[in-house]
């Protein structure tokens, strides 16, 4: 296998899975440990009605944790990447909105462990995560594209001889 193909087929998906999964697990744990702090962090964004904040603070970290673990172990990679893509888009909207309103608040991205303020750095970080998630979301599109494949594509299942011959 050529180096470029090896990189695309094996190494990049592995790095992306571990990085993305690791970040989501790392982000989920402090929020699960202290849901009241995470609820406060969401509240600071001033985007959701007060009544919804606790429900989101209770449930969202578990979705993060589950998707993160699945990415790291390499099961349901594409589905996990879709879930992570959805969450990254949600975070992107929240951070952009808060930055545009000039709010000087803690990101809340990793619970309150990091103490990171929202700003262009947190936006860039989220976009990088989103990029990896989108990339992994497509990773089974072509045969051999992904390090871990859930199911072979129909094209891959077809006998080589019939694929090579024009109809």
């Amino acid at each position: 296998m050529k180096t470029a193909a090896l990189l695309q087929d094996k190494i990049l998906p592995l790095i992306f899975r571990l990085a993305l999964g690791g970040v989501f697990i790392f982000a989920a744990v402090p929020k699960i440990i202290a849901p009241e702090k995470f609820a406060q962090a969401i509240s600071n964004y001033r985007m959701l009605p007060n009544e919804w904040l606790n429900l989101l603070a209770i449930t969202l970290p578990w979705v993060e944790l589950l998707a993160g673990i699945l990415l790291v172990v390499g099961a349901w990679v594409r589905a996990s990447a879709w879930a992570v893509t959805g969450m990254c888009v949600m975070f992107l909207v929240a951070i952009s909105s808060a930055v545009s309103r000039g709010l000087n608040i803690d990101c809340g991205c990793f619970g309150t462990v990091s103490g990171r303020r929202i700003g262009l750095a947190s936006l860039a970080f989220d976009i990088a995560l989103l990029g990896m998630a989108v990339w992994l979301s497509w990773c089974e599109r072509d045969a051999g594209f992904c390090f871990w494949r859930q199911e072979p594509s129909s094209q891959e299942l077809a006998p080589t001889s019939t694929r090579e011959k024009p109809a």
Partner: protein
Amino acid sequence: MRRTFSRALLIVVMGLSLGLAANTVSPRRIPLIRPPPKAPQPSEMLTLPEAKAIWESGAAFFLDARAPADYAAGHITGAFNLPAEEFDQHYPQVAPILTPDRLVVVYCDGQECELSHHLADKLRSMGFRNVRILHNGWTVWRTAGLATQTGDQK
């Protein structure tokens, strides 16, 4: 595609269920519906002239509820930094100088800033009986030309 979507949906549903289940048994559980924020009583708030008089008399501790970086960039002269969002981490540094009976004035910055309210609630729950809030404190203090200083907490 359809199977992936179903699986993604299942991940979300399982996460939601796990979260709700974990919250039911967790010792740190929080109510599913967040109670409405308590509106501050007028007696909890200070006007700028009142705050200025208290500051000049030296009768109160002034606590800046903002993040350390904001505090370092500028704060009311003599105020201590106790970031509301990192209370547990910073409280031990401030604890030796606080006494429960002495007046504490807390402030943050901005019309919508709630850090001072959170800090005041926290202090009251710890037994500080005399906590008042200077709303939008940093901005009103600075624009009034009152004494300010910069730098980290010593």
